[in-house]
């Protein structure tokens, strides 16, 4: 399928300079128990404008959105919607006033059909007291066409791709009259092509005068899509600019508050001559993994590129013992390797940083200390023969890792739910630093992580590899792989469709291979 990049980038939103801004925020402040989450923020959004909100995790973007939605109360400051002061105390009120909020974790009911999800919470036409699904369907079809969903309305949303689920969520917002829609990291789990589809939909929305608040870490995207851009740092809006004035460098400097160090590789070591650590031969699992063979050398950073759903995560699950392959074989340091469980994989020296840190990587209510040591409990005994664990050893290990990864947390006893996304991700990575690993698989290691933390994570990956670990990085962010990998394998429909090394690893090459159909 061809990429349609140009369209979105060039066109300007109509009605951009109207007299009264659609949304005006003046002097907005909010503190949580003494910590300033927002401080004197001013912001204006015009009808039909896509307004980018960017900044590190914990910079205040989410707090701003939560105040708009009425999830939390502001301390001071004013919000005007179409010139009128706005006070909402819960999300329902905000919805009634024409706001719509789409969070990273979509609020869909997986088992319900598209139709039922779209009509959720709306008054439906009834006949004899029963819902008249036929006439409801008519209304829904119009909205569905608008966002470009092609599936049957009876399809349960759990069967849709993440991209289509986003479209359903947007369609749900369009079921009522909305003025402003906020989207939190919409492209975080979308492929490049799916993102383009989403951008088209966003563009269609703005041409109807709907404003979009667009929260993202992907600066290229923001620069292509957003009319106005606000950069947040430490609760302040440090920069308000427009697409015409902004460049990536300007934005990065504003986010970080200074220069960013370049973490890209200088000299790729000759990893191919190193010993082979892991070898996969003709690994198969259902329709997701199809005869995958690969060789992993000591100290190698091996990237797995491809589209979401191309079988990369499933492959990782096979290596980490979450699932067992249907056929094919694996060896680890020359010996047959057949992990029966994750525990088995770990004791063989294989680790996994999972794709979803909140649902798969962390016990959110648990402290940093608690989470960090879960992979490592047997080494924390007071004495090797005693069943009791030493809290002192717990603290020793986690403090060391907190320092090593520069995790920003008030203490190791803070629940991880209170940390920002980037620091949470570092905790998930930190879980694996306390033991000797031969192979570490990292599934989307920098998803939803700010620029600074991302650079630190990349540096850490390199450091681990240089220390002799072999690392497999799965990433849908095609700029990430060229940055850190020695070798990139591209998967498409469960098969390896390309192997790139050294200078061949480029964003374009990965994209190109991603669309190669394995069946050809």
């Amino acid at each position, binding site marked *: 399928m061809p990429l349609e990049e140009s369209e979105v980038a060039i066109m300007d939103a109509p009605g951009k300079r109207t007299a009264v801004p659609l949304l005006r925020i003046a002097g907005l402040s909010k*503190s949580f*128990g*003494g*910590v*300033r989450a927002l*401080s004197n923020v001013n912001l204006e959004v015009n009808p039909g404008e896509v307004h980018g909100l960017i900044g590190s995790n914990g910079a205040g973007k989410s707090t701003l959105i939560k105040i708009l939605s009425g999830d*939390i*109360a502001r*301390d001071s400051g004013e919000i005007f919607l179409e010139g009128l002061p706005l006070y909402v105390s819960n999300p329902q009120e905000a919805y009634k006033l024409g706001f719509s909020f789409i969070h990273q974790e979509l609020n869909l009911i997986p088992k319900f059909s598209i139709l039922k999800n779209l009509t959720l919470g709306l008054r439906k036409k009834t006949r004899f007291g029963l819902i008249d699904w036929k006439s409801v369907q008519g209304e829904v079809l119009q909205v569905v066409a608008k966002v470009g969903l092609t599936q049957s309305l009876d399809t349960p949303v759990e069967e849709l791709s993440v991209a289509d689920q986003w479209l359903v969520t947007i369609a749900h917002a369009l079921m009522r009259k909305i003025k402003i829609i906020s989207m939190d990291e919409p492209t975080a789990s979308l492929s490049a092509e799916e993102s383009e589809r989403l951008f088209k939909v966003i563009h269609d929305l703005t041409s109807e005068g709907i404003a979009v608040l667009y929260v993202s870490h992907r600066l290229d995207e923001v620069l292509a899509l957003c009319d106005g851009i606000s950069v947040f740092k430490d609760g302040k809006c440090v920069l308000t600019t427009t697409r015409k004035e902004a460049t990536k460098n300007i934005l990065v400097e504003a986010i970080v508050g200074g220069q960013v160090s370049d973490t890209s590789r200088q000299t790729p070591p000759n990893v191919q001559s190193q010993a082979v650590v892991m070898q996969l031969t003709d690994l198969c699992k259902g329709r997701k993994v199809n005869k995958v063979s690969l060789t992993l050398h000591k100290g190698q950073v091996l990237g797995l590129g491809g589209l979401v759903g191309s079988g990369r995560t499933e492959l990782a699950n096979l290596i*980490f013992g*979450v699932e067992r392959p249907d056929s094919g074989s694996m060896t680890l340091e020359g010996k047959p390797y057949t992990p029966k*469980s*994750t*525990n088995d*994989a*770990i*004791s063989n020296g294989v680790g*996994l940083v*999972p794709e979803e840190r909140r*649902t*798969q*990587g*962390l*016990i*959110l*209510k*648990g402290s940093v200390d*608690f989470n960090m*040591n*879960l*992979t490592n*409990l*047997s080494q924390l*005994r007071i004495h090797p023969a005693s*069943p*009791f*664990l030493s*809290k002192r050893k717990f603290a020793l290990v986690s403090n060391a890792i907190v320092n090593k990864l520069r995790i920003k947390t008030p203490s190791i006893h803070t629940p991880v739910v209170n940390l920002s996304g980037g620091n949470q991700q570092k905790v998930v990575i930190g*879980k694996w630093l306390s033991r000797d690993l031969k192979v570490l698989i990292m599934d989307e290691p920098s998803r939803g992580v700010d620029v600074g933390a991302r650079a630190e994570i990349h540096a850490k990956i390199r450091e681990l590899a240089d220390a002799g670990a072999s690392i497999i990085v799965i990433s849908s962010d095609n700029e990430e792989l060229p940055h850190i990998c020695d070798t990139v394998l591209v998967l498409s429909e469960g098969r390896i469709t390309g192997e790139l090394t050294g200078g061949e690893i480029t964003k374009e090459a990965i994209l190109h291979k991603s669309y190669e159909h394995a069946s050809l």
Partner: protein
Amino acid sequence: MAVVVNGKIRKHTALLAVSKFGTIIGMLIMYLAFSIAVPHIFPTWKNMVNIANQATLAAIISGGLTMALIVGEMDLSIANVASFSGVLVTGLMVQSKMPMGIAIPIVIAISAGIGIINGLIITKLKVNSVVATLGTGSIVIGLNYAYAQGVPIASGLPESFKQLSLGKFIGIPNNIIFMTVVLFALWVFINYTEWGIQIRATGGNPSAARLSGIRVDRIKIMALAIASVCASITGILLASLIGSGTSGAADGYLMPAFAAVFLGSATLKDGDFHIVGTLIGVFFIGIGFNGLAIFGVPTFVQYFFRGGVLILAVGLSSVARIMATK
């Protein structure tokens, strides 16, 4: 750090305190109220020992239930296991002429088996724990009747068995010692051992636990086995206390055990189940029951109290928590 208006911080702190210490404050208020209302009976040392003694059996079964709830599973079969244990232990001693030192370990082992079966049904057959333990609970009632036909086993019990709960050790009722030992062991287990930490991790997020190399199924089975064993200890001690093995003797412990654990989860921590909280929950209910009984209120009021207090305490603390974080 910014300067925040003083009053706001004060309100915030007060609300947090209500959410964490609400049960303890309520317990103290209740204690004071009863002390003022019936000063010559309620606040006496004798009555305090009495309350503690009455609370012991509930504390042990609730402590076990806490393990099941921490790992994220319900166990509705505990009271039935407790009743069955009482019947079985007396039956083994009276009818099979077994010495106490053999009968008790056998009963505890069988109860552990029931817990393991609960765990296997939940983890391997993927049956929801409410359904699974309702089912096994009913089967355990069946075993109970199959074994003793519903006839209480009383005559011929060795005196040493009765002394198990009635006796004293250096002036302290044995039951209080049993409770202290069991709950302390559970507390150490859940906080300072590998398995304990893994139980908490599994309850916190099963998929993250699994991806951290924790054998989630085994851990769940273990937690349910502990719940059953604790229930069994309560059942055995109850049989010793009332001097007979009666088919439905411990059935009434189910609801207070849940009440105590949930009250406890609203104490000191933000809705997490924990042993210290459970102990406080047990005493909360114990003090309330004792005071009301001394007052001589009709039975129905005691049930109102139990239900009302549970909803009120847990409800208030969660409301306070939400307001404090807003």
